[in-house]
């Protein structure tokens, strides 16, 4: 579980966050520390694809929020991941 896109979408699923808050949140729930370059590389791609959007702010730290398109993509990814997990667990039980 180290795909930055999925981790960022999961982090933004419960509300908007700026870059550093995302880094801390992801480290807390996934045990993965995204470096600043990796984080902003993913943010750039995801904003271009319309999965996240910048939220107006007076702070230098720019918050981002997940869009409907991003939420749909996250649901699709989680569904595929869930399928993989269930298959793996079933096979481990029968092994």
């Amino acid at each position, binding site marked *: 579980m180290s795909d930055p896109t999925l981790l960022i979408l999961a982090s933004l699923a419960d509300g908007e966050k*700026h*870059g*550093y808050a995302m*880094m801390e949140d992801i480290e807390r729930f996934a045990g993965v*520390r995204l*470096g*600043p*370059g*990796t*984080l*902003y*590389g993913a*943010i*750039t791609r995801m904003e271009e694809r319309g999965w996240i959007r910048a939220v107006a702010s007076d*702070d*230098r*730290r*720019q918050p981002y929020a997940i869009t409907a398109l991003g939420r749909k993509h996250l649901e699709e990814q989680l569904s595929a991941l869930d399928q993989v997990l269930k298959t793996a667990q079933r096979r481990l039980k029968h092994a």
Partner: protein
Amino acid sequence: MKRKALAWTALLYPAKWRRRYGVEFAALLEQANGGWRDVADVAGGGLMMQMRMGLGWRFVAVCGLIGIAIAGVASWKAPKHYVSTAVVRFDAKDPTRVGPLRNLQSINEMEQQALSRKTLSGIIEGAGLYKGERAEKPIEDIVNHMRTDIAVRPIPSQVNHGILFSISLAADDSAHARQGAAALVDKFQQEAQNRDAAHSRYSTGLATRVRRTRVRQSGRSFSARCSGCWPEY
């Protein structure tokens, strides 16, 4: 120091990207405290972004200048290395009686004798080679090291009445490389003469002459006449 490095590394990102994300990215870098791992991550991110958005001429120029600077420092820091190469030809007065010296095996046999431990340790001490190492390591290790610095290579030749090959010695000092190579040539000459004595059948038909020596130094080369050279040299 790391914060400054991070700020400088962030300049690797394309100007267009920095116009959009520069302020918030700088704010993130001020808060993040990942040390040199973050510097590497930001550098990697900057390069990836340059490739995604198209390499600008400034970026290419800066990378080129950095490359030249690194190459210059590496070249300046690298220890100087000299290779002295002697081209040796053992010639026969009687072309019909030179058979055993006309093949690779004869060079290998002479090489084994000329590069023996006793011979090389004598050259090391006589020419004052590997002075630094001699204070720290046993002579066996230094002899083994010297063997890796020596190259004996046969040279294809149209001459029908002799064998032609090169003897090279690498050293950190040009004078030592030259002295060592000259000493090796002497040993090969002695060995050839010994072989003549051992193979008396051919002893009258062989003459050993050093044809030419040269020293390559930092890409330049020059030739030196030597005693015993053929008249044309």
